[in-house]
Every structure is written in C-alpha cells, then in structure tokens.
C-alpha cells in the first residue's frame, strides 16, 4: 500500500545508477524510491534548507534503499485484481461488487464492460431516466424554447429573464441528473467512464450562451454513441455539433470579405476568419500541441472550415457554401483545391489517422487508466494498436486493460482520484440512493470540478499534482463526514412548501460502518484500519471515506 502515498510534486532529483537500471523489479523499486525521496523533500521544505538538507537526504536516501528492497513485488491477489478493475474501469465498488467480479473472473468482467450493449440496464435506472423530460428534447425544441424566452425578455424583461433562467436551470439539472444517475447506478460502468473521458477531451462549457441548452444533446448525440467506437466518428460528431461550433466560435467564421445577404444594418455581422476552433482541433482534440503544425497550418485549417456552421432554427449542422473560402489552401503539406465541405472532411480524416493523434490519445488514455506518468512503452503499444485498428477505441482499451503495465502492482492504488471520481466512488461505496442531485453537484463545484463547468477547452486534468492540495483535502473530508453521517439530503427533494418532505429530509441515516468496511475490504491500509477501529463508532464511516487510501484508486 506504499504506492498509495505517492506525492504528486516534481520528479525526483535522484539520478539513475547502474544498480537501479538493471534491477529486476526496477520499475517498482524506483517508484518506491522516488516516492520516498519526494516525501523527504516534502519534509525538508518546512525546515531551513541550507546545509542541513544535503546530509538529511543522503542519510534517509540510503535508508530508503534498505527499506525498499525487501518489499515483495508480489502479484496482485484475486481480491486486489477485482478491486483494481472496479476502481479503474468503474467508479469503485458498491456492496457486493468485489465478490461478483471475483466469481465471474476479471477477464470476463473486462470483456463485458467493453461491450456495454450486452449488459441489461436495471428497471429502476430506466425509470429514473424516463422521468427526466428535458434530456429527451431535441436541440431544435430546446433552442426554440430558449429563443422564445429571449423574445419574451425583450417585451417583458422581468418575466422573460425569469422564464429563461428557469428553463436553463431545469435543463442543467436534468442533464446532470442523467449523467450522475448512470455513473452511480449503471452496470455499464466503463461506458460511463468513457463518456466522462471523451466529454472532457472534447470539452464544451455549459455556461457559454446557447451552450446552456445544447449540452444535453451534445453528450447524447456527439459523445455517448461513439465512446467505444471509432475515433474518426467521434471527431466528426463533435466537429459538426452545434454545441462545439458555438463554443469555439467556428459557427461564425467566414471567408475574408464575406458579405451577408441581409445585413440589416448590423455592423457586427460576421465577416472573416475565426481561428479558435481550428487551433484547438489540432492542439487539443487530435495532434497535440507538439504535433508538428505551424501558425500557417492553423490559419489554413480555419479557412478550410469556413462555412461549418449550424442552423439556429433547426439546431443542426449546416455547411454554408456562401461563407466558405473558395480559394485553394496549403495545409500540413497538402495542396487542397477548393471543394466545399469535402475539404474539412479530408482534414478530419488526415487528423484522425495521423501518428501524432494516435500518440496523443494513447498518452491521455494511459495517463487516465494507468499512471500520472504513463509508461512510454505502453503509450507506444497503444498508439500502434490505434493506428493498426483504424482508431478503434474498443481495441485500444482492450490492449490497455490486458497490458502488463495496467497490472503492474506498482500502479495498484497509485492514482489520486479526481473530485468527480472521488464523489462518485464515495456514493457507490455507501450504496447511496440518490434522488436529489443538488448536494452532489454542490460538492463537485466546491472541489473545483463543477460538472459541465470547465470553462476552457482543455478539460479537467486527472493527475494528483492537479488535485491534491490542502484546501481540497479539507473539503473532501467535509464531504465524507456529511455523507457518512447521512446529512446530505440525497434521498428526498427538499421542498419548503411540503412540511412532510422537509421532515423526511432531516431523517439522517448514517452509512453503516460494518457494511462499508466489508465493501472496502482489501482497500484500506493497516494503519487506516487501526485508526478506524480506535475511533468512536459514529465516526468510522467518515474516517474510511475520508482516508488517504479511499482518495486513491
């Protein structure tokens, strides 16, 4: 369980010796040594750093070698293997999950998760989803409602604003409720993990204008159907969805000098390029920032994508011929003759099959599923699979989940959960039946990871360095304590006008410490178990959920 405490700060200053290079359990031992060294640095930093430091590091560095060597590099036990897949392919175990995965076998579990269409959704989840009317509305209807409210706002500002706010609030809450209820209750856990992964990769910010009503459709149509499919399909679906076109401004990028037919005296009508989407398409969505493109390539790609817009009345993609730059382009070494929308489709094809894209996506997958510093050999391996399979995400994941790196004991319990993973895994471990999602959304906001609330197109990070800090730790403990004591009003929607419901909301049902301990069996270190056992029984669940062990996975 040592790896659990890995510090997320800078790379260790320790130079690699011959001994370290050739040791049979090189990776694991080095990792332990690095962790030791980081901890030592952490300790030293609070002290005067002058001459004291050198001796101290040296002495403890030697000690670390002695301590680290005898530690067994044993294979994971059956229970640990089950916990590992539940932690990484799912949002952690619910009561009974570990036993079930051990019964069916880890390989079988992985195979099943890679084919979510073979897993039946429980009726209770289907019922819950059926109650969320907003998530089924088409983009067209939602935009129409949004615009009606905007019109109303012009005539009757107070009422119109009120209506629009109400509409947006309902859509936002229901979209979030759909996402969270699936993440907590769906047996197709990997599908839910990948929805979050790809949404984050192709991030769109809920707070920007029309995107307030387009988020639901974006996740439903552009992301969800392709999360285990072909990367090119996913790329194309995001490139043509109004939510993305609006978020990164491409909807109003036009050929230079374009004159709209009806300007209507509006001096602000679009006329000219907007580079925003073209840049992020290469930097974030495909090639990666070091993918070998220049400013010229950004501008040329923006020209290629002029006219990729959407019909605001239909809420659907439209290629606007008149806005398209009809000149020839030179992009990434290709001479491209003017050819309408086909130019952009060609660019997406090229981007999707570029080796730089294969590497970029593989790095992100390996970092998400294996380790903050993904093993280079694994990234290479995945990139090769990505290219060979024509960008088949399921095939790449299958390689990943059966790789020695994924199963390396040094990577077991070594990832620090993001706030999203932490909150969801705590709800699952405590077998929470959530009806009211507001406290969950509040916790995510407080922890710095509001759902659909990442403003910038790069999405949230998933490393310990990004998320472990003093304030975050305190807030996680606050959340764990409230959840464990049953003080989060999750099971009833608080309704001020309904005295009975308000009374019910005050009925605390604490999380049963014995059940929780059984669910987390094998996951908590000896030290944590001892601290829990020594504590007041009413605090035991809070301590387990707020422990360092549970914050890692």
């Amino acid at each position, binding site marked *: 369980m040592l790896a659990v405490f*890995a*510090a*997320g*700060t*800078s*790379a260790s200053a320790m130079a690699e010796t011959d001994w370290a290079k050739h040791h049979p359990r090189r990776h694991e031992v080095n990792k332990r040594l690095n962790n030791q060294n980081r901890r030592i*640095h952490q300790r030293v*930093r*609070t*002290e*005067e*750093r002058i001459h*004291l430091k050198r*001796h*101290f590091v040296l002495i403890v560095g030697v000690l670390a070698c002695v301590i680290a060597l005898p530690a067994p590099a044993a294979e994971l036990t059956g229970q640990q293997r089950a916990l590992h897949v539940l932690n990484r392919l799912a949002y952690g175990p619910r009561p009974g999950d570990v036993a079930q995965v051990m019964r069916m076998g880890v390989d079988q579990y992985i195979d099943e998760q890679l084919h979510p269409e073979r897993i039946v959704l429980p009726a209770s989840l289907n019922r819950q989803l059926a109650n969320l009317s907003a998530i089924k509305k088409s983009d067209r209807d939602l935009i129409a409602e949004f615009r009606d409210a905007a019109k109303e706002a012009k005539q009757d500002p107070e009422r119109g604003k009120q209506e629009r706010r109400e509409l947006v609030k309902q859509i936002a809450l229901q979209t979030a409720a759909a996402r969270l209820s699936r993440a907590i209750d769906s047996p197709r856990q990997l599908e839910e993990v990948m929805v979050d992964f790809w949404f984050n990769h192709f991030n769109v910010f809920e707070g920007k204008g029309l995107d307030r009503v387009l988020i639901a459709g974006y996740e439903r149509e552009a992301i969800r159907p392709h999360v285990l499919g072909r990367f090119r399909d996913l790329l194309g679906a995001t490139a043509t969805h109004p939510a993305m076109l609006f978020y990164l*401004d491409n909807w*109003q*990028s*036009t050929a230079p000098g*374009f004159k709209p037919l009806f300007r209507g005296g509006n*001096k*602000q009508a*679009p*006329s000219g*390029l*907007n*580079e*925003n989407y073209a*840049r992020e398409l290469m*930097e974030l969505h495909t090639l990666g*920032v070091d993918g070998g493109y220049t*400013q010229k390539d950004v501008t040329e790609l923006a020209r290629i994508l002029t006219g990729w817009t959407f019909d605001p009345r239909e809420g659907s993609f439209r290629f606007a011929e008149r806005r398209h730059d009809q000149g020839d382009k030179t992009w990434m070494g290709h001479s491209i003759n003017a050819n309408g929308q086909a130019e952009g489709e060609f660019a997406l094809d090229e981007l999707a099959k570029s080796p730089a894209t294969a590497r970029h996506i593989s790095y992100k997958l390996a970092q998400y599923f294996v380790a903050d510093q993904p093993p280079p050999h694994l990234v290479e391996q995945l990139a090769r699979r990505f290219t060979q399979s024509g960008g088949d995400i399921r095939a790449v994941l299958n390689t990943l989940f059966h790789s020695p790196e994924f199963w390396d004991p040094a990577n077991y319990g070594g990832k620090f959960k993001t706030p999203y993973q932490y909150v969801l895994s705590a709800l699952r471990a405590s077998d929470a039946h959530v009806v009211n999602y507001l406290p969950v959304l509040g916790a995510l906001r*407080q*922890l*710095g990871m509001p759902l659909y609330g990442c*403003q*910038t197109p790069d999405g949230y990070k998933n490393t310990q360095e990004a*998320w*472990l*800090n*003093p*304030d*975050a*730790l*305190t*807030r996680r*403990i*606050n959340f764990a304590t409230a959840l464990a004591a049953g003080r989060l009003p999750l099971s009833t929607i608080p309704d001020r006008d309904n005295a009975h419901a308000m009374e019910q909301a005050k009925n605390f049902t604490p999380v049963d410490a014995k059940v929780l301990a059984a669910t987390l069996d094998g996951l908590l270190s000896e*030290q*944590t178990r001892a*601290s*829990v056992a*020594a*504590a*007041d029984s009413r*605090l035991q669940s*809070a*301590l387990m959920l707020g*422990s*360092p062990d549970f914050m890692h996975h």
Partner: protein
Amino acid sequence: MDRRKFIQAATLSGMGLIAVGKSAWAARSVEPATERKLIVVLLRGAVDGLNVVIPHGDPNYYQMRPTIAVPRPGQEDGAIDLDGYFGLHPALISLQPLWQQGKLAFVQAAGSPDPTRSHFDAQDFMESGTPGRKATADGWMNRLLGNLPGVSTPTRAISVGPVMPRILSGHMATTNIASGAAAGRPGVLDRPAIGTAFSKLYQGQDAMSHAYRDAQQAHLEVMSSLEDEMRNADNGAPPPNGFPVDASHVARLMRNNPRIQLAFMALGGWDTHANEGAGKGQLANHLSPLGQGLATLARELGPTFDDTTIVVMSEFGRTVRQNGNNGTDHGHGNVMWLLGGRIAGGKVHGDWPGLDENRLYEGRDLAVTTDFRTVLAQVAERHLQLPDTRLEQIFPALPRQVKPLNLMRV
C-alpha cells in the same frame, strides 16, 4: 545547527502559533524577512492588452480595429489618457487614482520569447518561468520562496481557489484558501472529536499527511485573520463572490498575518474571439471587477500596500487586427501591470515597437520587446531583495535586457 534542536524549535514555534492565535502575531513586531510582499494575478485566457493600455496616439490602432477600438480620450466611452499617447480602458476607472499617485505602472509589449499561441503551453511557461521548457517540475514562485531569506511556513505563500496553481507547486509547502464566502468559515474538522480522529489518520510523513497539516494550520490562520468579517457576515446576507471579495480576503490576510509574503490569484474569461466590445461590452465587463478588486487590494492592504508589489500578467496578447467576428485571435506581445508603493509608477515602461505593418510579429501581432521574466526578476531583486546570486535559480538562463528598465523607485 543540530538537526534535532532545529526541529524542536520549529515545532515549538508552530505549536505556539496554533495555540495563541491572532494575539501572538498582533503583538509581535513585523518579521523583517517577510515584510516585503508580492501578489501575482494571472489573467488566464490572454487578455487583449491593446485594449487595456490603448495606443490612442497610433493611427494604425484605429485602422486595424474598426469596430473594437476603444475611442480616443474625450470621446464617448473613450480611453482615460495616461501620457498623451497611451490611455487606460474606461472600465478601469477605479485605478485612475493609483496612477495619479504614482502607484500604478505598465510595461507595454512584454511577453514570452517562446512563440507558442497555445493558451496552455504559454500559461505553463509563465508559471514555470522557463519558456520553451516543459519539463520544469516546479513554479517560479515556489522556487522564489525557497531562495528568499528567512524561515518559511506553509502560509508564507498562498493562493485562492480549489486547485493549487502550477506557479506555486514545488518542494516548498504552500497553501490555498477557499474562494469567496467559504474562506474562513468553520468546517467539520473544527469539531474537536472529528478533528482529533482525522488528525490521527493523517499523522504520517507522506504528502497527504503534510497537506492535511498545512490545511489545518492555514485554516486556523485564515479563520483568525478574517474573524471580524465573518462575524459581520453572519448577521446579514451572505457576502458576494468574485474577484473583489477574494482580493479583500487576501488583503486582510496579508495585513493581519505578517507570515504571508507571496500570494497568487487567477482570473479567467479573457479569450475574446468574438464580440469583444470596445469601451463597453464583453472585455469591459471583465475588466471592471478586476479594476475594482485591485483597487480594493490597494485600499485594504493599508500601510502594507507601500511594501507590496502587485503584478498582473497574461500568457500572450491578441492579434492587432480584429478578426471576422469583432474579436481577436491569439497573438504575442502584451501589457504587464505593476501596482504598489515602491514601483516607479505613473509611467508606461518598455520599448514600444509600434503597430506599423513591418514592426508586427509575424505580420499580425504586437512584438515582444521586454521578456516577462525581466520584469519579474527586477521585482524579485529590487523589491523582495532576493540576493542576485539566487536569480539563476528562479529564472535560469535569463537573457540580459538590452535597454535598461527601471521599474522600482530608487
């Protein structure tokens, strides 16, 4: 010093602080090592510096920005004239008194020597202090902390918000406090039974345990420094959130707690690719609370403001020409802002390259004539009194500035 004695001394002083709270440092004279303060504000998303400090004396500016140029001084929604050539965006009116008092200055055409137009790489370089080098593990403010004289506590450098910024990450312990009204509120760990149980769980020497203890210490200090405000807040409506509120918290913390020397805050929303606006509009709406927050910082720091330098910076500037959507795309050179009692204020510093076509960087952007590190290095050396032999640790391989800058008053 003998190591055990040292640790004992450090532990005792730490414990002493926790036990006696505010009165301890109120009674103590200001610790000389941390007397000089630095606050860095990073505008994430690339603020359009040409619409912050407006070259209204350059006709190219108005030609290249037909719908988004800020009008000349004296016109409706026009710039506030600074020196006859440059003007300040009218939404920053709250900063005008500081300009007049000589406590506000700008460096125009500053930026990174690295040509990237990626927000994320450029911010990374501005926070690591090593443009073009991604492998740098720590932030320059963290290295600065490690090289300044005096003993560091985890609250010597603070940031506001739920994540620890790259600029403060590294070997030295730093702390973050909650943004908005939540700062300084008691939490469950203030209940003795719960606090004791968790302290036992986090008593190790690992990163998590250190973060836990840093959080506890910072929390006590913040609670104590903000207690008056919190008591008032309880009587009325919850205080609003936003930059001015966070700025007020930082000012009070720095004024009340002499241990705090460095602070970092970040603000987003500057990526104005469309409908940027001119004297009014999107950019103006973001500048206004920023200006108010900075004025709040200056006011509420009180006498401490005279010992403080505030630096406002952003990863790169934006295109000189407006784009097709009345906005601007990613550019290069930008403006840096300096506030404080010791800066050479009332002046737009730097070597202004102008906006003539042949002076633009890659034919589209304001050129960089001052390396952002030169500005920061001068603040570190002349204001924070960093020994010049240590500068190499903070900004390795920093090239010499060709034309000398004198940003601090002598």
